[in-house]
């Protein structure tokens, strides 16, 4: 096995960057390393020699971006006559190449082998995401890019980038540079420049991964305050401002002018159709304390129901973003607080027990006709002693009461790695291989549920990750042929 080549009838041909680069990557992965895991079983028999894997992609689209609607199907046929990867799209070809790389093995003598194989594969869910939080801790660009590599090994296809939050604002805004200058931990070193962002988006694209950017408002915005005076609500104690700030101030026109300009930028920088607009954990205390807001509430007839004020903000924001031809994903509070959203809004379920158990929440959301993303049982930042990947694996996203049409509204889910206790020192071992359990749950058939079977494969896959230079932690007692050594 020497190379990958395009079939003559393939819509993708040399010059297709997505696949040209993938061929290079997979060639390096397969052929440059000197050590390999021995396979489970070897049957010494005469093996016909193959010279290359032929790839046929039936629809063009090499310079496009992957989307929620992208097909990722592929078939892989390895037999005496053929060594053939067939897919509709380049994204499917990427998935097939990854599978191929997991089938190839090398004998101690140095010969490469692959078993006779017949694979038809496609993902169960189209949205299979991983959330990284670059606000609580800055993550160097290399950490993000490395994570994208491993996501591709696991067939994840959405990078949910929670860029900013209370703690810091590392996104380098060209419309409002003060946001970054005053909001980042260190504007010289702890920021993502426009170039960085472009690099992430293209790096992801070449791996069939969408970048879903999140700019969470109106809560989780403390770091926006210093660079945008007047944006956040001044909190009061009695009739005096305390000097502290709360969520975005929803009663000022300037707020919406700001958001219009800001989201115009965001919409142009991030090419995916969807933006994540946040909307979680809005603390009403500060709003309540502010006399101007109290007047506003009275004027609008909201009474004492601050959920209506939140609705008012979110709806206005959603209209702004819709005008930029973007779709949006929001956290479940937006739905729970009865904000009027467009029917094609995607709701992300993250709360395990409140206001209801997450399975019930999935039922309510899909029952109301909205598409849903599941994250609640997949908060990988919640570490615990022992093989917690098992609980992660055993989640069945469609395990709720609902019609088939309802269940079809569940478009997938996301493993979340919030950053309170995570930075580049411990990100990789905390993510991998645990996130792999989520990856399989979202890609593979719902019938694939045997934890023992998964354990066998995931253990070997973890050693393969080590071989590929990923700092993936162990699942249990044991060893890999080549252990991780610090460089």
């Amino acid at each position, binding site marked *: 096995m020497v190379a990958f080549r395009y079939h003559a009838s393939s819509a993708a041909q040399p010059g297709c960057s997505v696949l040209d680069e993938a061929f290079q990557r997979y060639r390096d992965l397969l052929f440059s390393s000197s050590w390999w895991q021995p396979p489970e079983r070897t049957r010494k028999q005469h093996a016909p020699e193959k010279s290359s894997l032929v790839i046929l992609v039936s629809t063009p689209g090499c310079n496009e971006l992957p989307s929620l609607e992208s097909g990722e199907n592929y078939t892989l046929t390895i037999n005496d006559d053929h060594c053939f990867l067939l897919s509709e799209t380049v994204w499917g070809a990427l998935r097939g190449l990854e599978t191929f790389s997991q089938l190839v093995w090398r004998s101690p003598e140095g010969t490469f082998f692959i078993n006779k194989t017949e694979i038809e594969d496609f993902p169960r869910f189209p949205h299979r995401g991983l959330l990284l939080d670059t606000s*609580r801790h800055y993550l160097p660009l290399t950490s993000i890019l490395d994570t994208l590599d491993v996501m591709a090994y696991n067939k994840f296809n959405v990078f949910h980038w929670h860029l900013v939050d209370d703690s*810091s604002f590392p996104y380098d805004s060209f419309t409002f540079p003060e946001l970054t200058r005053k909001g980042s931990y260190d504007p010289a070193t702890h920021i993502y420049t426009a170039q960085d962002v472009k690099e992430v988006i293209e790096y992801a694209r070449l791996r069939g991964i969408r970048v879903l950017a999140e700019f969470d408002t109106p809560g989780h915005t403390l*770091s926006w305050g*210093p660079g945008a005076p007047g944006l956040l609500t001044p909190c009061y104690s009695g009739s005096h401002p305390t000097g502290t700030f709360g969520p975005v101030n929803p009663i000022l026109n300037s707020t919406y002018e700001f958001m219009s300009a800001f989201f115009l930028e965001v919409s142009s920088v991030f090419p995916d159709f969807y933006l994540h607009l946040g909307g979680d954990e809005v603390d009403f205390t500060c709003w309540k304390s502010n006399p101007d807001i109290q007047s506003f509430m009275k004027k609008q007839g909201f009474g004492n129901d601050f959920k209506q004020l939140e609705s008012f903000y979110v709806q206005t924001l959603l209209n702004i973003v819709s005008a930029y031809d973007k779709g949006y994903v929001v956290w479940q509070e937006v739905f729970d607080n009865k904000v009027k959203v467009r029917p094609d809004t995607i709701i992300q379920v993250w709360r395990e027990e409140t206001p209801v158990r997450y399975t019930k929440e999935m039922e309510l959301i899909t029952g109301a006709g909205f598409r849903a993303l599941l994250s609640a049982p997949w908060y990988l930042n919640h570490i*615990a*002693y022992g093989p917690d990947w098992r609980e992660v694996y055993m989640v069945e996203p469609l395990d709720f009461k609902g019609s088939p049409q309802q269940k079809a509204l569940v478009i997938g889910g996301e493993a979340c790695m919030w950053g309170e206790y995570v930075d580049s*020192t*411990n990100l990789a071992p905390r993510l991998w291989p645990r996130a792999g359990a989520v990856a399989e749950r979202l890609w593979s058939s719902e019938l694939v549920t045997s934890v023992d079977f998964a354990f066998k494969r995931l253990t070997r896959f973890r050693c393969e990750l080590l071989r590929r230079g990923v700092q993936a932690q*162990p699942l249990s007692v044991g060893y890999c042929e080549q*252990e991780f050594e610090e460089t």
Partner: protein
Amino acid sequence: GCGCRSRQDLLLLSPGTPPASSPFGSLWPLPQSLRVSPERFRLAPDQFQIVHGPGSSAGSSCSLLEDAFRRYYEYMFGYSKWQNRDGKKSLCETELSLLQVIITSKDSECDKFPSITSDEAYHLQVSKPTSVLKADKVWGVLRGLETFSQLLYEDDCGSYFVHESVISDFPRFAYRGILLDTSRHFLPLKIIQTNLDAMAFNKFNVLHWHIVDDPSFPYQSTTFPELNAQGAFTPKHVYTPTDVHNIIEYARLRGIRVIPEFDTPGHTQSWRKDILTPCYSGKHPSGSYGPINPILNATYDFMMKLFEEVGNVFPDDYIHLGGDEVDFSCWSSNPDVTEFMKKKGFGFWYSKLESYYVEKILEIVTSLNKKSIIWQEVFDDGAKLQPDTIVEVWKKFLYQLELARVTKQGHQAILAAPWYLDLISYGEDWKSYYGVEPLNFMGSKSQKELVLGGEACLWGEYVDGTNLTPRLWPRASAVGERLWSSKNVTDISDASKRLTQHRCRMLRRGIAAQPLFVGYCTTLEQ
């Protein structure tokens, strides 16, 4: 000029400003006594030296100190926050240019190995142009150099300063250990070395090397080469005599003792089958094996020879003999063992058989002129210990009662129970480790003096080279301060400030210590 326009002036207050500093700067663990003055002295790498001072009984022939001087110079100036230093000649006058190191006793112990009685006290006078570090032994110098290196800081323009200070320091507890488990997962040599470095940064002084256990036997024995041949995961997952020697010396240069643990009679599945007890299913051997077989003379011949080797390879006075979690079911299934029990009059008390075994091993070790440490079960199950046997208390439930019991019987104790760092959970668990007070148990003053210290344990079921360092640090640092510093150093908010900075310093020195909480370090992490 020599003024520094702070980048802070340009930044204004951002939400990412590091938390307000502690009056004790970033010292970790906090010294027993320190006086810091607001006056500060400027230093520069090209105009600073660490030297042997006048009257010191150690000189350039002391390789331990020579190595330490070089290491600490590098820690102080080699890991600048400012990436493009290039060792440029400093433009400003420096005020502090010399640190004199003076060993004040006749025998510096330079070429010796550290022990439980090693003197780690030091006195540090930071003044200009010369500062003086005095200690009776090299071990105190090592601790003092670490402290001095923690007093140093860089301002926003890259100039180095230390504040005028007087520090008198010594450890509260003499035994301050880290347990590493190289059986559940093999740990490459480099990882162990990196963690020995981190231990030195935190003034830990014992590496408890739990080297073999059920899953694998990576220790290469010269007496019994079949042990690792059969017991290691693969031939590559082995510690050769050279590797072991390397670790012992690496540790020694940092004032760290290496105490090996060869845990028996349980936890021995990876050992040679002929010394394990064959388990029975009814009248027939089942094919599986249990703990070490205590009824055979051959067992004790084997153990004598093995411990003779171990005693020679590892220079420390102590060997850890294990003795934990012995499962009696295999013994009770074996008819030969049953007969032996009868002969000895042990009845059905397998704990007596366990004690019989352990007492013989304790005697073997004593005859080899070594002392023993054992896990608490050995004591709990009634074995007669040697007078200087140390009992390690590891079971969490009511461990204070156990400490009381052990010390009441006159045995020395070390505490591990509240410090099982392998038991991870979400959040700032370092605070609970910090909050432990080892002597919080009912006992007399003389009882409490029997508590030699404690250990942070990082069992290896879910830990290997990929995640060991971030999992151990800075959580183990909390244990480090608890064991070194004075009993009344308990202010968690001050500790948090110092530890946050100490963590960033460990990062700068190449230790992938994980974050304590939200925030950042002023040098780009990795």
